[in-house]
């Protein structure tokens, strides 16, 4: 039964050329960030003073040119993309776990618990959340792990809402009643019966959360609050490139272009997955 559903989804996904293209592009970028450095002799932090802000070309294997300090842009952009992807995956997982747990508990228990928990979400989503991430990074210092946590910590609100909504409808089903009648505990019911049945929309939303979080991380790094020098993320590279735009546009175009392509591919794939799973827009 389950396998036929998965087969259905995969078949529909395969017949969507846009989504398959996007998947190929995403996997290509992931492979490039992982294996690209093997093919290029330049390190991401090595300074090449004889080629400062040089144009893309074959000299010294600076395929994408160099930045103001003579660092190879190919290597730096790949490092930046690797960091951005890692943040996207880890922070999405954090928000996924928190969102599922919160939403399933609120939706299943219901009553006053649900009321209070949803009121908390309402207040939190009324806040300009960017402030809180700024505060968290300011208070706890600029560590990469805290960046993961703080971005994930603000990303779970929508996920919790979606899971709660799904849980409310699952809770009415007979198999839950059967589980209650056979004496299963609340925790067991939530983990074993509720969560597996709300996974469809959750997977779709999670796929669309990854690009949002990558965008958010780049935004923070752009503001100087995320990844710090000498390390790079796509956001810091774009910020540096925007300042050099007139004299050396490639410093902006390389990381900016890669971020644009990556986000586009992830979004198109997420949309395709949503169509394949036939999840209604909220």
């Amino acid at each position, binding site marked *: 039964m389950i396998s036929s559903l998965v087969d259905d989804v995969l078949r529909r996904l395969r017949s969507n050329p846009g989504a398959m293209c996007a998947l190929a592009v995403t996997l290509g970028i992931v492979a490039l960030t992982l294996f690209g450095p093997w093919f290029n002799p330049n390190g991401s932090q090595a300074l090449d003073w004889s080629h400062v802000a040089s144009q893309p070309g074959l000299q010294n294997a600076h395929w994408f040119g160099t930045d103001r300090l003579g660092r190879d842009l190919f290597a730096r952009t790949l490092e930046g993309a690797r960091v951005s992807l890692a943040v996207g995956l880890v922070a999405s997982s954090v928000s996924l776990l928190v969102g599922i747990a919160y939403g399933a508990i609120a939706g299943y228990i219901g009553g006053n618990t649900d009321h209070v928990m949803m009121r908390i979400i309402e207040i939190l989503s*009324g*806040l*300009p959340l960017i*402030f809180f991430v700024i505060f968290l990074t300011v*208070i706890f210092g600029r560590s990469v792990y805290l960046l993961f946590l703080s971005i994930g910590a603000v990303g779970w609100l929508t996920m919790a809402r979606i899971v709660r909504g799904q849980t409310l409808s699952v809770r009415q089903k007979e198999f839950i009643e059967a589980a209650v009648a056979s004496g299963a505990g609340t925790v067991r019911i939530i983990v074993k019966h509720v969560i597996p049945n709300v996974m469809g929309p959750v997977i779709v939303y999670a796929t669309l959360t990854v690009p949002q979080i990558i965008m958010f991380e780049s*935004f923070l790094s752009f503001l100087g609050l995320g990844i710090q020098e000498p390390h790079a993320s796509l956001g810091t590279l774009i910020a540096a490139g925007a300042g050099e735009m007139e004299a050396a*546009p490639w410093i902006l175009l390389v990381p900016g272009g890669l971020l644009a392509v990556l*986000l*586009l591919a992830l*979004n198109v794939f997420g949309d395709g997955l949503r169509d394949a799973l036939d999840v209604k827009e909220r």
Partner: protein
Amino acid sequence: MLRYFLTRLAGAVPTVFVIVTITFFLIRAAPGGPFDQEQTLPPEIMANLQSAYGLDQPIWTQYGRYLGALARGDFGPSFKYKDFSVTELIGQGFPVTLELGTLAMALALILGVPIGTFAALRHNSAADYLTMSVAVVGIAIPSFVVLPFLGLLFGIYLHWLPVAGWEPASIKHLLLPVAALALPPLSVIARLVRGSMLEVLRSNYIRTAVAKGLPRRTLLLRHALRPALLPVASYLPPAVASIMTGSLVVESIAGLPGIGRYMVQGALNRDYTLVLGMVIIYSTLLILMGLIVDLLYAWLDPRVRLQ
């Protein structure tokens, strides 16, 4: 109607209060203070500064004082911008940010709704696919990438528009920032309108209206548009939030003297009162937006009753 509005407005006060309280204690928990500099100040001067701004008092007294001043509409003095009150700083920058945001929002609505309707009317045609592909690009690519790209194209290569800078009442300087800010909400709105318009156009009462022989124009404007705008109404608060966050970076890239810069700088400088002032402004705007959406809903959908 008025009573509903006032009740909801009163209901927003506790929310703002909670937000102010959380922010107040969160920013105080951050290590460092507003008077930390490269060179450490002599302890006497430090003590003088602290007592001048009331920072030597217990934190609860400071909290009480802040709330008291706030109730009188006083946001307090800025710690970092000497001789400026937070009210003055925000008062100077807010009109610029407001102009930028309003123009972006207006552009997103004025272009997004017709584009979405157009795509729905030509469902599954090449024009539909093209506009929706452009919309995905608009959603996927953040404004801090779009704006430098636009600047590169229109400012540096074509010399049509200034890359950055600001002059009062100069639309030329605002054009690129507004376009970059408007693109993501514009794309979302176009997609939302297309989806809901498709659903509305399939409904029975539209078929009845067609059968009656109503002209297309009347059909669209009088019967189809209003229900099709419902999802746009509920998207407005997130749209405003996204424009607010976007304006943070857009203002800094384009060199606009808005309030965006105070948010990050205020937190980094531990300019407690400035940060609190910004939080209050932004959360009030968001809450107001939620309220406007409820009123819009009642207007768009007669089945909704405000209580």
